[in-house]
């Protein structure tokens, strides 16, 4: 049972207080929130006092189905909607004609520019926690519309620099798709673009692609199968990294149970018959 194996590995990788990027390492926001999204019990005391840095953006989504953390979730959501400085509300900036630098999204670091991935994290949290009617949600979606690359996916940043079109990246594209509302006009082309992941896969890109495909009614199974092929005998993924193993476990959780905190309940297509050899 690949999901259960990953969960067992994650339990062993936990430090005294929470999860670090490496087993037993210094507790950090990102690996801890993904471990919670994978289905592990949240370290509530640590979460309540720790500086999660930018991982506060996906935290509410990652723990959206965790019991006993309602107050924390509300605090995180209020924080990500807080316009007072210093905050993770992205700064606006005139960056030329091609990119609209005045669309407010979210930033990795207080008082800096809005980027695709942190904006995706915030959008997923707002949507999963019933705040998608907030005006900032629509602005965040508009940012993703503005930054889409000519190939239908998303770069980590802009879609062009100094007049040169930039290529999209699988990992950023997966997060953007996971964040876009169901039925959005950019989803179809984006899902097609995700197929590139299978040519040069990685744990994170496969996991996020599977989640994005599952959310939008696409076919997650090629991504799930490629992900399973990367699982180490000890249950871990991605060179023994906690964050990668946890994200993989979130995808496997969705694949095996039809739900995850990052996607909500999804209707998966039937899995093709597995053949030996």
């Amino acid at each position, binding site marked *: 049972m690949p999901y259960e194996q990953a969960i067992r590995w994650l339990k062993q990788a936990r430090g005294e207080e929470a999860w670090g990027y490496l087993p037993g390492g210094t507790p950090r926001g990102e690996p801890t929130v993904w471990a919670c999204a994978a289905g592990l019990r949240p370290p509530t005391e640590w979460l309540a006092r720790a500086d999660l840095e930018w991982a506060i953006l996906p935290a509410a989504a990652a723990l959206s189905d965790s019991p006993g953390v309602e107050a924390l979730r509300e605090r995180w959501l209020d924080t990500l909607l807080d316009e007072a400085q210093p905050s993770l509300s992205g700064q606006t900036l005139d960056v030329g004609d091609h990119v609209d630098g005045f669309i407010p999204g979210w930033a990795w670091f207080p008082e800096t520019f809005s980027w695709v991935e942190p904006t995706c994290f915030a959008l997923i949290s707002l949507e999963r926690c019933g705040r998608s009617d907030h005006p900032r949600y629509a602005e965040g979606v508009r940012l993703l519309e503005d930054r889409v690359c000519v190939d239908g996916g998303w770069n*980590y940043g802009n879609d062009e620099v*100094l007049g040169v079109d930039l290529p999209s990246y699988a990992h950023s594209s997966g997060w953007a798709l996971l964040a876009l509302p169901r039925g959005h006009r950019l989803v179809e082309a984006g899902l097609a673009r995700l197929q590139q992941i299978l040519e040069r896969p990685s744990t994170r890109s496969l996991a996020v692609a599977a989640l994005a495909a599952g959310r939008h009614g696409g076919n997650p199974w090629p991504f799930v199968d490629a992900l399973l092929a990367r699982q180490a005998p000890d249950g871990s993924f991605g*060179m023994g990294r906690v964050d990668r193993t946890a994200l993989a476990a979130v995808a496997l959780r969705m694949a095996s149970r039809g739900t995850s905190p990052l996607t909500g309940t999804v209707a998966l297509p039937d899995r093709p018959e597995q053949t030996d050899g």
Partner: protein
Amino acid sequence: MADQTPPEGPDRRVVLGGFLAAATLAVGGGMAWNIARQPSARVTVLRHRDYDDGLAAHLVEGIERYPHIIAKARGGRVVLKPNFVEFHAGRPINTDVRFVASAVEAFRRIGAAEVLVGEGPGHLRDTEYLLEATGLDAHLRDVGARFVDLNVDDGHAVVLPHDETGFGKIHFAKTAVTADLLVSLAKMKTHHWAGATLTMKNMFGIVPSAIYGWPKNPLHWKGINQSIFDIWDSVRPGFGIIDGIVAMEGDGPIMGTARPFGAVVMGDNLPAVDAHTCRLMGLRPEKMPYLEAAAKAGGTIHPWRIEALGDAVAAESFHILDHLSHLRA
């Protein structure tokens, strides 16, 4: 996260002048004084046209010109910091993986007890993808070297002696700043904002993105030249080696084109290594604010103060974008 006491250095105002009033300082006696106060530096250029099996031995030959670097490396922990940014098939964006493997081998031959390769890619968050797509993962496996993702490393706070960025201190990757010898293993590339990205700019990768985000956005927000200077000034990496075998020109550091140059540049004074390499690229280092600031803070960029060792390699004229034409020699 531990603090580190800033090393002794020139007054902050001296360096600030580099950013604000370069022209007024570059006259008469002031100019001569600025040149004279730059410590003498030795930069080695090796003619090497391919990423072949002989590269490691050639690197050793170059490093051996710096006995104090050999002394630091011998029996110690050496961290090689290559430049890995993105992967585009066919574009020489990154330090060539064969170059990295050869450098690992070279420092082992010199007697390092441990050689690690550490990088915190500035653009791509998916380091596993970058390692596999570039082939770095496979090459490091072949030479038995460990990779450390500096983006998620523990932070180690260092106070900025001149604080041109206004950060006060920066949390650097602990693995990098606690090494016995930190080596910037850069790529010879033009850069569409900074002019050139060489051993000093390469040090952006020791700033952990798990703290500062991608693409280390606060560093750009505070000023790319100020950030390059502050990072070098506060960390002072011991050695720099530039992969100029196949370089990049034009719209670097990502969208430029390959330029076979056939040389390796190295030295223990990173501003000198970068300044000398700029001249080999047909660029004027004294017009680059971060190099000019470094020259006022213990670095060397003036050609009179740089002794060129090794092979005679002629300067060429790298293509740069029009808005950087003031950098052309």
